[in-house]
């Protein structure tokens, strides 16, 4: 049983701690929790334009969006988007991390500056790629023609497939260094002795990768994939600024649809309902991931 003085000391520590976290709690409470609750409230009303009053309509909004093909199509595109990003980013990041793990002149600089595509603001990324992929003056088409990959200039954003593919590649180009740096940290934590012992035992480079690197990297890879999925699901600006959701809705992922419904379609409550559904999906995914993760971790 704790003595009175122990409880007093513990209480002093707790008071100090709470004073330190109070600003964050208040801040996030006001800017995340309250709006979240607001959103929930909004989703069960029938508000159309911002600021107008609404009546309680129960789950009407949810029913209507869940029966609208637009919603499901957008969700499907989001899934394609997320999966595409995950695959491309992981492959690129893994390759980059493996390269950066080696020692060669300038590797330190490389390790720092690999993230340059991630630190550059989205608007710049947008400008860069809209110009490079454009058919007037863009570098990529002539390059590909010159390399013999294609015969004629390609309209990168003209068809549904090419638009989605281009966007996935651009977003992956932007994000893979971030993942690469994290993977690099994981790689560097694998003791060199393990590789040396394996080499002495006769394992080839590929075998060492498959039997030592991959298994030891698995937890980190898993965490990064989950986080990456959550983050890429929410991507709005790159898609909006490059294709605006087009051509003909081909790249209208869920965030785009929600934005348009709220600010162009002036159907606020519907948008709120959609965003709540999206959030529940993501939280479900996150919790599922955490539960699968938990046995491997020592605990937060």
């Amino acid at each position, binding site marked *: 049983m704790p003595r009175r003085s122990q409880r007093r000391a513990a209480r002093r520590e*707790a008071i*100090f*701690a*709470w004073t*330190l*976290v109070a600003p*964050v709690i208040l*801040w*996030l409470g006001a*800017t995340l929790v*309250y*709006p*979240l609750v607001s*959103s929930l409230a909004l989703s069960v009303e029938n508000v159309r334009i*911002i600021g107008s009053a609404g009546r309680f309509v129960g789950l009407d909004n949810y029913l209507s969006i869940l029966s609208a093909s637009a919603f499901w199509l957008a969700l499907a595109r989001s899934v394609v988007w997320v999966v595409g990003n995950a695959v491309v980013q992981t492959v690129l990041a893994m390759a980059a991390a493996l*390269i950066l793990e080696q020692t060669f002149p300038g590797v330190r600089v*490389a*390790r*720092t*500056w*690999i*993230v*340059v*595509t991630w*630190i*550059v*603001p*989205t*608007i*710049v990324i*947008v*400008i*860069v*790629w809209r110009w*490079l992929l454009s058919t*007037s*003056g*863009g*570098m990529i088409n*002539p390059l590909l023609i010159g390399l013999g990959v294609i015969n004629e200039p390609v309209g990168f954003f003209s068809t549904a497939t090419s638009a989605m593919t281009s966007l996935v590649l651009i977003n992956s*180009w932007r994000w893979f260094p971030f993942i690469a*740096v*994290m993977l690099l*940290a*994981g790689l*560097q934590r694998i003791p060199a002795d393990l590789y040396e012992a394996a080499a002495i035992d006769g394992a080839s480079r590929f075998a060492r990768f498959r039997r030592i690197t991959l298994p030891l990297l698995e937890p980190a890879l898993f965490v990064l994939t989950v986080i990456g999925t959550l*983050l890429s699901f*929410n991507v*709005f*600006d790159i898609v909006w600024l490059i294709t605006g959701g087009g051509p003909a809705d081909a790249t209208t992922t869920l*965030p785009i649809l*929600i934005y348009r419904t709220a600010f162009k379609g002036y159907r606020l409550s519907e*948008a*709120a309902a959609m*965003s709540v559904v*999206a*959030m529940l999906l*993501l939280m479900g995914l*996150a919790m599922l991931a955490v539960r699968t993760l938990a046995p491997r971790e020592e605990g*937060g």
Partner: protein
Amino acid sequence: MRRGLGVNLALAGGLAFLAVVALLPFWWVISSSIKATNEIVSTTPTMIPHSFTLEHFAKLLTSSDYPRFLINSLAVSAASMAATVVLAVLSGYAFFRLRFAGRDFLYRAILLAYAFPAIVVLVPLYGMMSAARLIDNLFALVIVNVTFAVPFAIWMMRAFLAAVPLEIEEAARLDGASRLTILWRIIVPLIAPGIASVAIFAFISSWTEYLFASVLIQSDANKTIPVGLAGIIGQYQVDWGLMLAGATITTLPVVVLFFFIGRYFVAGLTAGAIK
């Protein structure tokens, strides 16, 4: 372990590919921003500029609102950076070095914030800002930027705080330092690299933010770069030169910042990855 020639070649090849993929697009943009317009749009693009002109930059800086956007962005990003650092350091210390009821739950709840699509809170936040008369006010952007940077920033602080041995705090307690003194005079100096990492992260996140900036700011005079530049692009649909100049200048601050404290940022990212 020695690498065979084959592996070295593959390594060099991979590295070259990486460098090209990551850096070449920027080279094209920056080098083209000083080309004359006809060279920019010509169907035979050039790696090295054949022409040289600063007209695009001049146009951007004198006859567009870009300078205004630049100032706004700098102000918002600097303020967001400062606020994020303060919040992350204070609460990070509490979460990772102090004991109090509800600590773990609170920490996990804050991390969970990243599962929220920003879209979810966009409309209600707009409503709140509207009610607080903060629409078209840069302060609203700072509030939002900090909200989305802080959870990750706190997570980043963990490894840096863990690197400070508990014994040092105990020695300070014996020396008579109060809790606040320990935090300010012992902990903070020792986690300076962590603070740098968080600062860069917050600055970059803020510098790039588009969604809330487009909704919460309405007048041209208060726009930040992402929204302003997107607007300019919309206006001058085919003025590539202007766009490229805009892209170049916009990249500059983060590159400069990164040049000075970039390695702390990468160190911070990777340190945070160590559980």
